[in-house]
């Protein structure tokens, strides 16, 4: 009995006092539409497709993001242009299914797909939640400014032959006997 009374005094009354003190603390929430809350740069929000520093599309249509997506909301189709670059013919994200998990960003080998700190994407028509490549593609490099996949990859495209990529040695001529 005594212990119960003591518990009541030390625990319950103490709790009441602690919670009461919160009346004099500034509120953590803000008046949202007028006052924007601070969003961390690594917040996982609206998805974009970025371009490399040369202004070309980064996406090489490898489908890794679509495989990684746990809710299967990415759909894309590979195409190839005349100088050998791969690119997505269409790239579609259904944001009514996307759970903003960021797995696609993790999976992407070219840093093309990125999540941004923006969440204001409500629509009145559900069909409008499906974004096409035109909607997703931005004119910038996103979070990774210097990265250019074709400059580090071994694939040859127009203006960059084999062996010209960063940290890449000239290809060995296997038919030559010279050292």
């Amino acid at each position, binding site marked *: 009995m005594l212990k119960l009374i003591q518990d009541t005094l030390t625990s319950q009354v103490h709790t009441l006092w602690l919670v009461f003190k919160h009346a004099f603390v500034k509120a953590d*929430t803000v008046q949202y539409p007028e006052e924007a809350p601070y969003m961390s740069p690594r917040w996982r929000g609206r998805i974009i497709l970025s371009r490399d520093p040369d202004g070309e599309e980064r996406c090489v249509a490898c489908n890794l993001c679509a495989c990684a997506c746990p809710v299967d909301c990415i759909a894309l189709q590979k195409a190839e242009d005349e100088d050998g670059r791969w690119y997505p013919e269409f790239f579609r994200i259904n944001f009514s299914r996307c759970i903003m998990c960021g797995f696609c960003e993790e999976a992407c080998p070219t840093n093309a797909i990125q999540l941004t700190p923006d969440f204001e994407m409500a629509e009145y028509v559900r069909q409008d939640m499906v974004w096409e490549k035109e909607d997703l593609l931005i004119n910038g490099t996103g979070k990774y400014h210097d990265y250019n996949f074709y400059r580090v990859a071994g694939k040859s495209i127009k203006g960059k032959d084999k062996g010209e990529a960063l940290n890449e040695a000239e290809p060995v001529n296997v038919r030559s006997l010279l050292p």
Partner: protein
Amino acid sequence: MNWEVGSGLNIGVILLTVIIVAAMLIWVERRLLSLWQERLGPNRVGPFGLLQVVADMIKIFTKEDWVPPFADKFSFVLAPAIIMVAILLSFAVVPFAPGVGVIDSNIGVLFVLAMASIGAYSVMLAGLSSDNKYALLGSLRAAAQMISYEVFMGVSLLGVVALSGSFNLREIVLAQADGWYVIPQFIGFVIFLIAGIAESHRLPFDIPEAEQEICAGYHTEYSGMKFGMFFVGEYLGLVLISSLITVLFFGGWMGPEFLPPIIWFVIKSFIFIAFFILLRAAIPRPRYDQLMSYGWLFLLPLSLLNLLVTGAIILST
């Protein structure tokens, strides 16, 4: 007879004020909770969000009022009415200030207890007629909780009754002219406070409607204005318990001269309303069996002891 009926105007004004205050409490509670939880709370509709209550009312009145086909219609419709009527009737005996009050009954305290026990039917009928297992569980819990806590509530009041020598609430207030009863009856006050929370099943004793365990308990199947009546009924109960504490233990309308008596009454009651909301913000809900054993094994002996000691002191002086 030995009671006076207030004028019709008096009754009407008190009834309206009590209901409006109970409705405003929805807003007050949300603002206070958000204050203690470091949020802003509803502040959009009207100045400081005051019109939130009106918005809620419009919403609740225009919602579909649905009676499930499997429910027992007679008791289903009756249940929400009972709680409103029982609690509003209890306000009849509360003396708000000199000259303000509906009746001066010689059995005021007992009348409040009787109405509290009638109110228990509302919850039970609601759960029983809904034909829903969560509702039934909720009303079983409510019934057990309410009838057991009624006992401690009654016994804890008897100390005050013995000190003032009257069941009349107005005379109890007048008897506190030279000292509030909270000092000699502190244990009675604490027990009444706890039993009052349990009686109006507010958090932390909202076991009959514990959302996390049994949906919404006895009002799971209710919608529209019938749900609204349960909702407002809960706040009416809160106002009732707070004003009863004020009357029984804190000298009712008495206070220094510079404010009119009714203001003192409102201030004191509001402090208790705020305290109840603080309890809701701070204390977690106990388990059902903990609540019952706490009541029967701790509160009952304590209140009986309190009554015994009070009686002994009164007899010896």
